[in-house]
């Protein structure tokens, strides 16, 4: 297949401009259509190029469809390719015209040249016209059996295309079964890879409709198939290797020797120049070793160097993608990276999005031994002429201070920032000093001395102004001129556009009044008057509240507005641990770059072919999603408030968070800790049946929840249907619709845990008690199960989400029931069954 002899070094078609040209093209094409004169092909090529050029820039050239088809009777492969491209682009919107092409495409599918057979088949499958699918089945079937591997690779993708045009045609022709056969037998690795991709997609989509497809989908994760693919691993192209690695990372090996075999086999992939291969391998290694703490840590150590190399080789874009993943790992296990902090120093020519990630990493890895150097480096950035960078760096310094290392030196640095007399530096620093004081009140003396020297006229940004005002109110007795500064600010009430600042002004002036009444009285009166007349609802309300409180009793007002405060020990984290874990589960995907789990940015139908584990997640989210997502965002939004503004309530919230915070988020912190998310969601939208465990917290938060309904009367003894049946879809739907009726933490027998090497053992056990499992997942020490059971006499169903932690022997239960009155009885039944696990 030598290229055509003539060269076509003629000038390129000029950029066509519009309609006139299209009709010109039409005429010229028509003239050439029947011509057999020498040189016709050259002329056609030029015309075809013009047409495709129009197409690319968005000019509609569908009107020359029939002429293009007429001209396509040629043996020139370049012409054919252009024609296929054209047809593929316009067929969907011109189904009638598309019919014209079927003939010549079908004929080409039987050409003796495999290249032409492949090209024609690909074009035929790309027409995307529903009523032409009948013409596809024959050529596709032949293509899958073709002796040429190129044709077979095209045909395997063709099956997937057909599936997307018409699912039923594809399934009726039994193409998936053929693909499965090819996947296991074809000698061409690319055919195998394409079969794998196609089957993942097809069965992934079919699984929601049929039991059979769902089983088929599981067989993709069966040991024989996984081993088959791994044995042929080196034959695959680097891209196909990524697909295989992704599949393998969902496979659950039965024992540790299997895990080590896989890791040894794939170890050299960490040295691949293609970042996609390396990240896919890392994901697999991390998943495989989740339950082996020490090996998991070794994996972290092992992947450090390859990741750093990928960050520094390749383009800035690829480097960013890798860096995002490194960022995730650093956030999970900062201590592993604490000696590598210099790698996270920013380079002056890096884009801001890279610098931002690096600053966060620097903040995370700071510890006793490196804080001094890191802060010194950050101070360089703070003096930077690049203002956004300077701001971020100051925030980073502040965050490190809040992490409690070397606070003394950092406070000094922060105070030096204030002396730089750059407005943006001053603004950021004020906000930080305020946060520091909330955490370390012992520094107030040093800070206040410096802050007192700042003229409020030089502070314009609302956040900074609010911080300054807060300090004026809080430390009124230490700052000589606090009442007068406040007074002058109140005089300019009308010019103050930020409601946040006005709110702070009100609070500060009231606080100041309690400490230095004679000096502040005048300012207080002015502030309350201005506040009550404020057009902003919150300002108005707060002013009125203060006014009435003061009128009622000044000392009570003081107790309400300015009670003694406890220092904040830990500010609330921005992301719940459950969300962090979910992002970690979605390692090597966009979730890591966006720092959001996929359900937050992807439509359901696009969630990927293999969303099994995700689905379990989604199941649990069905109900939680509103409760779960919203608080997350709320916290995010609120975080700034938490850190930047102050309303006294939030402080107590911060400390509560601390008290309930679980042990440091280690690298093996795969514990989903769902109870914590619940905590957060509770103060936001209390569920009527609040579980007892979390109840005390609500009281602490002072939300004054109405006491939960008294426990339901003892229900009659519950009998379960031994042959209960529930479709996965029905389960999902129910799970979404029903409220949680019981949420409880219980423990599981250690003997039971000991034999729980895989989820299967527990599933069998529960089945013996007529409680059936519909989905399960996870690896030691965390397993997640979805069970269901039905009443013996009536079609009333119970749904259970059960999270077992095999290392702590703790079990989290969430029970939902059609008939809520019996859920307590069911819960007892469930727990008694669970408690017998390990003894039978």
């Amino acid at each position, binding site marked *: 297949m030598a*290229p*055509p002899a003539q060269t076509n*070094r003629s000038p*390129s078609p000029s950029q066509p401009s519009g309609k006139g040209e299209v009709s010109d093209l039409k005429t010229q094409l028509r003239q050439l259509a029947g011509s057999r004169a020498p040189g016709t092909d050259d002329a056609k090529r030029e015309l*075809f190029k013009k047409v495709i050029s129009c197409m*690319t820039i968005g000019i509609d050239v569908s009107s020359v469809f029939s002429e293009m088809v007429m001209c396509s009777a040629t043996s020139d*492969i370049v012409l054919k*390719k252009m024609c296929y*491209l054209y047809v593929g682009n316009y067929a969907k919107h011109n189904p009638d015209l598309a019919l014209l092409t079927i003939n010549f495409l079908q004929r080409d599918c039987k050409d003796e040249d495999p*290249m032409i057979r492949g090209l024609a088949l*690909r074009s035929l499958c790309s027409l*995307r016209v529903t009523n032409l699918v009948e013409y596809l089945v024959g050529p596709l079937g032949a293509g899958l059996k073709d002796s040429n591997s190129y044709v077979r*690779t095209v045909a395997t993708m063709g099956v997937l295309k057909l599936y997307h045009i018409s699912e039923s045609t594809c399934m009726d022709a039994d193409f998936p079964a053929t693909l499965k056969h090819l996947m296991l037998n074809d000698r061409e690795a*690319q055919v195998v890879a*394409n079969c794998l*991709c196609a089957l993942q997609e097809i069965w992934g989509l079919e699984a929601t409709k049929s039991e059979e497809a769902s089983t088929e989908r599981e067989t993709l994760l069966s040991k024989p198939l996984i081993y088959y693919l791994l044995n042929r691993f080196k034959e695959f*192209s680097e*891209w196909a290797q*990524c697909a295989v690695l992704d599949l393998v990372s969902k496979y659950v090996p039965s024992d540790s020797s299997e895990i080590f075999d896989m890791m040894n086999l794939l170890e050299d992939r960490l*040295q691949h*120049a293609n*970042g*996609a291969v*390396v990240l*896919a391998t890392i994901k697999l290694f991390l998943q495989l070793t989740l339950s082996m703490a020490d090996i998991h840590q070794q994996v972290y150590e092992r992947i450090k*160097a390859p990741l*750093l*190399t*990928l960050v520094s*080789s*390749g*383009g*800035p*874009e*690829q480097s*960013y*993608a*890798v860096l995002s993943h490194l960022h995730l790992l650093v956030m999970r296990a900062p201590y592993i990276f604490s*000696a590598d902090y*210099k790698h996270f120093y920013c*380079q*002056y*020519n890096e*884009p*801001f*999005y890279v610098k931002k990630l690096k600053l966060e990493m620097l903040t995370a890895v700071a510890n006793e031994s490196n804080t001094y150097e890191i802060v010194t*480096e950050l101070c360089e950035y703070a003096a930077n*002429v690049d203002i*956004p960078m300077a701001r971020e760096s100051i925030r980073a310094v502040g965050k490190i201070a809040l992490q409690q290392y070397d606070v003394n030196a950092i406070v000094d640095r922060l105070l030096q920032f204030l002396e*730089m007399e750059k407005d943006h530096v001053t603004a950021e620093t004020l906000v930080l000093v305020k946060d520091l004081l909330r955490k370390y009140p012992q520094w107030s003396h040093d800070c206040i001395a410096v802050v007192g020297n700042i003229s409020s006229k030089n502070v314009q940004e609302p956040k900074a102004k609010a911080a300054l005002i807060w300090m004026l109110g809080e430390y009124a007795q230490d700052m000589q001129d606090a009442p007068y500064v406040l007074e002058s600010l109140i005089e300019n009430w009308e010019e103050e556009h930020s409601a946040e600042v006005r709110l702070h002004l009100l609070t500060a002036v009231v606080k100041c009044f309690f400490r230095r009444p004679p000096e502040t009285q005048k300012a207080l009166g002015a502030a309350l008057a201005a506040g009550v007349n404020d057009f902003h609802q919150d300002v108005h309300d707060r002013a009125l509240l203060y006014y009435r409180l003061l009128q009622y009793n000044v000392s009570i007002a003081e107790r309400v507005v300015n009670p003694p405060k406890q220092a904040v020990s830990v500010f609330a984290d921005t992301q719940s641990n459950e969300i962090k874990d979910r992002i970690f589960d*979605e390692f*090597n*995907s966009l979730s890591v*770059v966006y720092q959001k789990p*996929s359900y937050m*940015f*992807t*439509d359901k139908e*696009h969630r*990927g072919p293999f969303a099994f584990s995700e689905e379990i997640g989604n199941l649990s989210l069905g109900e939680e999603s509103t409760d779960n997502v919203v608080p997350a965002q709320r916290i995010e939004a609120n975080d700034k408030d938490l850190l930047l503004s102050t309303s006294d309530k939030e402080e107590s919230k911060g400390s509560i968070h601390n008290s309930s915070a679980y042990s440091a988020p280690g690298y093996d912190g795969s514990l989903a800790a769902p109870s914590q998310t619940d905590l957060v969601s509770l103060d936001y939208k209390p569920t009527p049946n609040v579980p007892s465990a979390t109840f005390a917290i609500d009281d602490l938060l002072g939300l004054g929840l109405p006491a939960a309904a008294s426990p339901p009367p003892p229900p009659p003894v519950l009998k379960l249907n031994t042959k209960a049946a529930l479709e996965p879809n029905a389960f999902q739907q129910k799970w979404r619709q029903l409220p949680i009726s019981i949420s409880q933490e219980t423990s599981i027998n250690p003997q039971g845990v000991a034999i729980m090497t895989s989820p299967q053992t527990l599933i069998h056990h529960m089945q013996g008690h007529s409680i059936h499992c519909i989905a399960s997942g996870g690896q030691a020490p965390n397993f997640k199960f979805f069970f269901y059971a039905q009443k013996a006499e009536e079609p009333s169903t119970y749904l259970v989400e059960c999270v077992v932690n095999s290392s702590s022997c703790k079990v989290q239960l969430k029970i939902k029931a059609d008939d809520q009155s019996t859920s307590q009885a069911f819960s007892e039944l469930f727990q008694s069954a669970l408690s017998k696990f390990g003894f039978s």
Partner: protein
Amino acid sequence: MISQFFVLSQRGDSIVFRDYRGDVPKGSAEIFFRKVKFWKEDGGEEAPPVFNVDGVNYFHVKVVGLLFVATSRTNLSPSLVLELLQRIARVIKDYLGVLNEDSLRKNFVLVYELLDEVVDFGYVQTTSTEILKSYIFNEPIMIDAGRLPPLGPAAMFMQGSKRMPGTAITKSVVANEPGGRKREEIFVDIIEKISITFSSSGYILTSEIDGTIQMKSYLTGNPEIKLALNEDLGIGRAGGRSGYDYGGSAGSGAVVLDDCNFHESVQLDSFDVDRTLTLVPPDGEFPVMNYRITQEFKPPFRINTLIEEAGSLKAEVILKIRAEFPSDITANTILVQMPLPTYTSRVSFELEPGTVGQTTDFKESNKRLEWSLKKVVGGSDHTLRAKLTFSQESHGNITKEAGPVSMTFTIPMYNPSRLQVKYLQIAKKSKTYNPYRWVRYVTQANSYVARI
């Protein structure tokens, strides 16, 4: 899987547009371009390479000023897509010889041909220039290579170095030489990008070398190649030595790589024994090996900055650079930049008497001093005096309002790591077979910064 692939010019026109799955609505190119263009104005900075608009994920890489973009609705591996985009650019360059807007526009049919084979229904089929050869029938329309800068780090050989044939780098893998005969040759480039941060006292705070051994083979029949590196090359830092405190003085001792990775064609069987790489080079340009070094090395340039205040509204900046490499080596396209205080209103420059090929500029918009030097010979030093006039009184600490000084440069036939290709052996087909071998070294500044 990706849904669409397209290439946009700097102005946002689609040069090629290929829809693979039809699940992303029309107008995605416009949505993408608007988003990228207005990212800054929406309060952010530069648009990140990946973002999501209305459930569609947009991935892009910038290559020679063009935007290579892919869209997808699924939660893909960002590394995979960005790497793919970069590879597509590389494959196109292999075929067209030169990659730029002009060559793309002239050859868009060939590009479509490539795109059809590289991706099918959103799944990557192959990005191997070699494999693709049998599916490609269009011949590239060559453009005048001299006019526009080509893609890739090898481009730096185009300037200033007499030893390489400039056209070779812009040769298409499919086009024949004008004479009809193909020249047998192979290029091995050792490209090192260096990053250094000097403290205000001239002490090296951090330094790193990011190196690549890049290969481009025009050998017929794909013979096996052996590439021998320094025999005492070490890989991975030994246990006790952590981070940057490795104290070997530059110029002696073994080269130690922190880490490296390899192209998939490379056989490492004898690498552990004698540091040779064996490979059958595929067609087209590809990195044989990437490596990273944090071992200390001798910086090619030293930078001295002195700021003297002269009254409340005036100051003088004295910049001095010293080339600390051998005198038979010449650095080219040197640019020294320094941000000045924002209240700087006017700058007058004073170069050393008799200098040629140096220009100075004060960029009013971002208050930046720029000093460019065409050539700097090893061992020489150069000084620039800049007199600044301020529009307001300085707060007395100009060093906090200006700097740091940064530098970019290219130094051909020099590499600070001392990593070497000791020999390049080509499996012989016959006695007369003696192809041209080009082994070239070059060093480029990545982030070269001196604080003041």
